[in-house]
């Protein structure tokens, strides 16, 4: 069965430090993968997507993700966290649109 697993339910970082949100997937074929962000009381916003064109994908607001087939991972990173990055982040498998359980990012001043 295809699945998406977000390895951390909560991540806490200090402002200005790097962010790493982890996502593993399982699929019998090369998937389409996405990262979405959900701010409180706001809709889901697409951060970036992977569709096999390039393994390193750059998204909005300084986020990027690297597709590693050997590790079946698609981790989301950002070099320097900002207070406005505090939100819920979802890794999504394009196959049947499977959402991960989400990772809540806290950013401390």
């Amino acid at each position: 069965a295809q699945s998406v697993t977000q390895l951390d339910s909560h991540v806490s970082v200090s402002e200005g430090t790097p962010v790493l949100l982890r996502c593993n997937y399982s699929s019998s074929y090369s998937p389409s993968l996405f990262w979405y962000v959900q701010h409180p009381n706001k809709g889901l916003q697409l951060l970036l997507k992977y569709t096999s064109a390039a393994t390193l994908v750059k998204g909005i607001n300084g986020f990027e993700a690297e597709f590693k087939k050997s590790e079946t991972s698609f981790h989301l990173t950002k070099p320097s966290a900002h207070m406005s990055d505090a939100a819920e982040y979802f890794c999504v498998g394009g196959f049947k649109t499977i959402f991960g359980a989400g990772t809540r990012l806290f950013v401390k001043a």
Partner: protein
Amino acid sequence: DAGVTQSPTHLIKTRGQHVTLRCSPISGHKSVSWYQQVLGQGPQFIFQYYEKEERGRGNFPDRFSARQFPNYSSELNVNALLLGDSALYLCASSLEQGALGYEQYFGPGTRLTVT
């Protein structure tokens, strides 16, 4: 251009009642999908419609149904409401069918509370 719009924003219903939620996709988008997001969890796929035909269905009971109209807007209907149906219902639109790299654009959702 307007994004995906959903109505109503909030809704309170009693157990056993039925509810209709509405969604208007981004202009030019032909695919609409519905998701249920229970508090503290990720969205769960309910339905996908493309060109007015059902193209995908998640693991939800038959109490849930949907349709897509010629203008590509969509309705989600839920009959015989249960307390567990309380959730944020999200609508998403995309240019083509999903699952193959076409990103989806989400509406703000309808918050349904069943008492």
